[in-house]
């Protein structure tokens, strides 16, 4: 094994849903309105006077078995030695198939460019020894980035998936999440930007 798989740690217990990571990502990647490569989704449930809500900030999970790499017709996706999954927008033909295929909706179609795009783990910053911009931006220090094994050791309570998230068996996501008790309660809806999805 040449390099350890890199990944994100998302502390769902800490996250207050402030969206700083999300906008930092938009700024770093110069995204117009529409694509949100890192998205803070709010999971709501319960009933008055005992509702619950928690936020999940998620970008690309740089999966061990990335379905985008497999399905992209033009091979625009590559998995680097350090495990980061990179999308080469110059190769992309905008077929949107990756946006259908990714369970986490990490690749998103950018109408302004006619191409897909997704979180690259800020590999340019990572290569310079810096953290991805979302991690630098997190005001609750709820996001971390690094070799997945180390993140797991640092946060022994962290898990690979939550009940509200897609089945991790599909892609083996390189992500660890610190859960909070509410993740086991039945959610009523997921708020994603201006979209609300009943579940």
């Amino acid at each position: 094994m040449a390099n350890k798989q890199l990944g994100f740690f998302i502390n769902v217990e800490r996250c207050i849903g402030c969206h700083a990571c999300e906008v930092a990502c938009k700024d770093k990647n110069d995204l117009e309105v529409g694509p949100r490569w890192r998205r803070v989704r709010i999971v709501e449930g319960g009933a008055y006077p005992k509702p619950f809500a928690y936020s999940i900030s998620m970008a690309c999970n740089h999966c061990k078995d990335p379905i985008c790499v497999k399905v992209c017709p033009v091979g625009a996706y590559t998995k680097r030695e350090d495990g980061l999954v990179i999308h080469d927008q110059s190769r992309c033909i905008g077929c949107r198939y990756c946006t259908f295929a990714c369970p986490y909706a990490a690749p998103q179609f950018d109408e302004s460019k006619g191409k897909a795009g997704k979180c690259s783990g800020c590999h340019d910053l990572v290569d310079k020894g810096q953290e991805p911009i979302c991690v630098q931006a997190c005001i609750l220090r709820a996001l971390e980035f690094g070799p997945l094994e180390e993140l797991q050791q640092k946060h022994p309570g962290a898990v690979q998936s939550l009940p509200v998230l897609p089945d991790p068996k599909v892609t083996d996501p390189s992500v660890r999440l610190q859960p909070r008790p509410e993740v086991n309660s039945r959610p009523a809806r997921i708020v994603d930007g201006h979209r609300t999805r009943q579940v």
Partner: protein
Amino acid sequence: MGVSRRTFLAWSGLLGGAALVAPSLGLSGGGLVETAAEAAGEEGKEAAYYTACARNCGSKCILKAYVKDGVITRMGSDDAVADDPNNPQLRMCLRGWSYRKRVYAPDRLKYPMKRVGKRGEGKFERISWDEAFDLYAQWLKEVKAQFGPGAIYCMDGSGSIDLALHSTWRQLGPRFFRMYGGGTEQTLSYSSGARTVATPYTLGNLANSSAPTFRQTKLMLMWGWNPAENGMGTNTAYFLRQAKERGCKVYVIDPRFTDTAASYADVWVPLKPGTDVAMMSAMAWVIINEKLQDQGFVEKYTEGWQEWFDYITGKEDGQPKTPEWAEPITGVQANLIRQMAREYAAVKPAALVMGLGPQRTAYGEQVARCGPSLAALTGNIGILGGYHALMNWMMAFPSDGMKTLPMPGKPTAALPCNQWPDLFLKGKSGGYPVDIHMAVATGANYLNQGGNLNKAITALQNEGLKYFVVHEQFMTPTAKFADLLLPINSLFERMDIAHANGAAVFMPQIIPSLYESKSDWEIMTQVARRLGFEQEWTGGKTEEAWLKELAATSKLIPDWETFKKQQIVRLDLATPIVAFKEQVQDGKPFPTPSGKIEISSKRIKEANNPKMPAVPKYIADWESPGDPLAQKYPLQFIAPHSKQRVHSAFHNVPWVREVEPHALWINPVDAASRGIQNDDTIRIFNDRGEVHIIAWVTERIMPGVVALTEGAWYDPEEPGKPGSIDRAGCANVLTSDRPTPFAGATSQHTCLVQVARR
């Protein structure tokens, strides 16, 4: 953005402004300051500078801007030091990250303009700066000569705040008009008027503690306090998380299940707006009745406690303020009130921390005095990890003692800011000391942000108001009413010093002033020249000379040149600041007439205002469920702050708009009885106005209460017409401008509405 130097030049050229050689460059002493990347101004090379966010959110954070060829290419965070839980980096929020979209917003005002249509229609024609300065000076001369300086109203908003030089808030405007001979100034603020007047009657001043002290807190009552969505000071939310991780138990008392409640609360206590004092009184009754109070503290440090006890126990008015009494008023179960009271009295240190929302109500003065009284009752004042229940918008930070711009002279008159529409309309005939004939707004979107927007429109359109000058960056709802509209540059386009929360930051001019925009300082310099007091205004100093002089008064800032290079100097955040520690631990007197915490105030008693009792009491709000008006408008309407805006600032930034919808929060019970479903467009209305916006049907708000975050830019169906339907969801179309009885402050959260499907 991806604006290349070439397209940027073409763009500014097209607009007729030689933006890259704007005079602001010359004034600020020449170009960019070299820092880490020693590449300033060099074509094709990227440089990075720190600067600070100077907005009125309750936090002051460090920004970093990467610049290439005179254009900001991306933002960065505070990375000048390693992140440390005790002294964390001063990281910015989503709005800080969105700055490029604000600086390069398509709706930036580009050149001076003069009104051509009816006031408020938003029709303007472009004029030159010379013409603008001449007109500005001529109007001021005319109004001053005809009516005296008091006829000029200085509407200084918080668009730019806490900066050494370019603060609009309580700085540039007042300084300018005082030098010109007076002017009518504003006092208090829309945020904190009632507590700013009332709390010092109890505690003596508004001293605050620092957020890291909460790490010692074992029980917190976050009362109408929403640090997860409002800044409350950089890193406050992070220190609170550290408190939680150390086992602090948290109650969140709020009609909404805010992000704060979702993130921190062990128990959410929804209570009806405006009934805070009823609940606090009931808690006090439990504590007194069960003899749980810190009697030693009460006797040693407080004044007039017996009088308050008499009110609480019912000795005074025959009504014991029991939890059962409070339950129907507050909507909170008596047992829950009892439980909270017992825990608050038993666990030490415990912090009752209050936001400003509860005091923006009809009798906001009462809650501003009741909280500290309750904190005194449990002996939680002046101790590490306790809190004096100050209603606050920003925790305390260490200070470097830097002086602010000198403010010579006096205003002709000064009135609470929120009273301007009434003042404009009535003047002396309404008992005010002056008639207003001209107004100058700097950093102020007051049409949008004050209560009763439709009344404010009539105030701005009244014929007595001859001239309205607006300094602005964008075409805001207030700007549309200007007679003269002047484009102001952004904080990246001028030099300054800011005090971030825990650091002094040198703010270099990072990019040239865009288009023809100028700073308020430059504009005032030009107008002062025409009015003959330029020398007094500038003191014969350049902007940089002023900054250098002020920086020299700081205990922290090194010599000027070093500071310019270093950019950030920091104070230690980990050293706890505990308000009233000297009083409680060292026996110093409280800064009140009695030297004690005045639960009962003689001075208030002497004022003899029936709506301002000497001890804090529960008085039912005018627009509340008990009001006959509730038959027609049965829902209590509150307008909390949104994380997407700082008041109305950033509303025009698409990156923050898209993270969450702007909608009316309504409980499913209230929605169902009106046939409203999530995302339906609805009407919200009362006698003051009507708003059309989508409904956000959620279990996260208590039945009987609806909430629409303040700050969305009023978008009338018929521009300039009072009473028009607003399509943007501007809360103040519905709120009232009725002042509180003692402070004369805003009571915007006391508001009844009806909601219906459109």
